[in-house]
């Protein structure tokens, strides 16, 4: 049995989500306006039609008239709809302009679409420097495969929600790493494509606290349905506390790129990076699939560290293999080392973070 999810879909919901931002309110209002005008026209037009169908039919003995043109009515029914649609457009114009106005944001967050998760980096404002990935809870993916889903937040639960303060203008800069994704949160009235190699932006200002959910809204490959968005809107005090905690946590985890690693440690670290980023395409067994190249037994992986580093930093095959610059030097070094020492690849070779630092130059 399933219940409404506040900030997410309600059971058999008939209309847009309850708005949690002014833009969403305006969108809702515009939608109601359009719905009512269109319904009115629809009822009027088809009222006439059904009247005619009932009265002007042969079976009730109506005899055909033979008029078949009138310039006056043609002009009338050109002008009137013209005015109506222009008026509709005029009502929307203000909102269009407001939606696009991303200036003077309090907080700027970059949302990067990956196959298949979201990465958030706080670029400006309180919390600057925080960055993390946000992935669908694995148990939900498993429920999906098993065909036995449960829970009100099915497919919407992530490990790390995006946290933002209430009543602050948040600018979301979107981009993507591989293919186009779209960042959408219905309650906040935003949907913005995330385009690889380009940045786009949108904004929202939540006017209530709470959890708001959305999903990736641009076909991005097989796991398209499994990269939800969860925005946690909190009070300013809670936000400050969250930022503090997060900063500490990140410091504790940060790697020193000049550290020299032992093979076993680096492979262990690399395995995690591989599972999080590479496995979806290259498979756990490193064999790839379809157009995706195999890493297991690959000559390039076995012999050519420089080329492999370049591919990780810049991508290959016209972006079919995305660039992974956003990973840290340590992570890239680790995952390369992992591929050189897994499956049948037992080279014993090791790539240190310092080499990545050098290659980035």
């Amino acid at each position, binding site marked *: 049995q399933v219940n409404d999810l506040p900030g997410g879909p309600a059971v058999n919901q008939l209309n847009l989500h309850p708005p949690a931002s002014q833009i969403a309110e305006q969108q809702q209002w515009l939608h109601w306006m359009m719905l009512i005008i269109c319904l009115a026209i629809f009822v009027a037009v088809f009222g006439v039609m059904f009247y005619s169908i009932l009265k002007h039919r042969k079976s009730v003995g109506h005899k055909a008239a033979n008029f078949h043109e009138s310039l006056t009515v043609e002009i009338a029914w050109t002008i009137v709809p013209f005015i109506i649609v222009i008026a509709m457009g005029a009502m929307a114009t203000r909102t269009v302009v407001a939606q696009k106005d991303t200036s003077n944001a309090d907080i700027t967050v*970059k949302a990067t679409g990956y196959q298949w998760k979201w990465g958030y980096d706080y670029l400006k404002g309180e919390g600057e420097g925080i960055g993390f990935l946000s992935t669908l809870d694995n148990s939900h993916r498993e429920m999906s495969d098993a065909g036995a889903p449960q829970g009100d937040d099915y497919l919407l639960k992530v490990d790390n929600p995006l946290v933002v303060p209430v009543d602050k203008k948040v600018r979301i*800069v979107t*981009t993507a790493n591989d293919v186009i994704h779209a960042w959408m949160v219905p309650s906040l009235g935003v949907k913005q494509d995330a385009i690889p*190699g*380009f*940045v786009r*932006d949108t904004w929202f200002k939540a006017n209530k606290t709470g959890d708001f959910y959305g999903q990736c809204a641009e076909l991005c490959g097989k796991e398209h349905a499994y990269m939800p968005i969860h925005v946690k809107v909190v009070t300013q005090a809670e936000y400050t506390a969250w930022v503090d905690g997060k900063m500490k946590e990140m410091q504790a985890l940060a790697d020193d790129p000049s550290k020299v690693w032992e093979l076993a440690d680096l492979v262990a670290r690399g395995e995690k990076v591989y599972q999080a980023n590479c496995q979806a395409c290259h498979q756990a067994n490193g064999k790839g699939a379809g157009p995706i190249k195999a890493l297991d037994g690959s000559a390039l992986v076995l012999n050519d560290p420089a080329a492999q580093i370049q591919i990780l930093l*810049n*991508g290959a095959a016209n972006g079919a293999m995305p660039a992974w610059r956003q990973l840290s030097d340590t992570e890239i070094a680790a995952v390369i080392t992992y591929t050189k020492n897994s499956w049948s690849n037992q080279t014993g070779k090791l790539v240190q973070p310092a080499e990545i630092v050098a290659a980035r130059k």
Partner: protein
Amino acid sequence: MAATTPAGSTPYYFVPGPSRHPAMVALGMFFVILGAGQWVNGAGWGAYSLLLGVVIWLSVLFQWFRDAIAESEGGLYSDRIDVSFRWSMSWFIFSEVMFFAAFFGALYWARVHALPMLGNLDHQILWPDFKAIWPSAGGGATASPAGTVEPFQTMGPWPLPTINTALLLTSGLTLTIAHHALIANQRAKTIFWMWITVILGATFVGVQAYEYMHAYRDLNLKLSSGIFGSTFFMLTGFHGFHVLVGMLMLLFITLRLMKGHFTPQRHFGFEGAAWYWHFVDVVWLGLYFLVYWL
């Protein structure tokens, strides 16, 4: 249906009898797309299938045109059908214009929109070192934000493209001379100027082939040279291919002229090929300014 017409008069409509050509062309196309699709993915047999398809296609085309020419020379094509051919050729050329428009559009978009955007302030978070300069502004630039494209030099308008422009413009002229000669019923003169036109066209193709070699060898300008290389080669390449086709059309028209086909009044085959040639000419002028100069 031709049979219903008394001998000697052209029919009002011309409806050819059953023909195996269309289905055969489709069969050829089957092997073409099957082969091409496999070949680009590295399956060697794809090339053979592609080749087989093209052979089928060309041989059917040859027979088809032979039939059509026989019908034409046999007096089955009335003035009305002549008009049909004119309409169809015009709209076919229009569709070609739209095909090129897609690539010119891509050039426009990349230069005026995408590239400046990739180099603007917002995009510095992705491409911190990228300066948006269209490569034709200076040698060595790559137009590649990621720096993945090897440095290359651009192809300026001088000298090869300008020579080619002159060749094509002249060929337009010689073709017109030939046309006037045909109308004046001076067949020998027509044929002479047609040969000149064909030779000019062939030279164009040759010069262009040389230009490509030059680009690859000396300038390091390749299909893979970022968006500059993509638009440069795709635009000039498709154009060059059209020149080749147009030249073959003119060649066959010339051969037909030598066989005594066409009359001063009725020579749509000639005109259709000529229109096509002028279209190719105009596209070239667009390329010459937009690709080489700007």
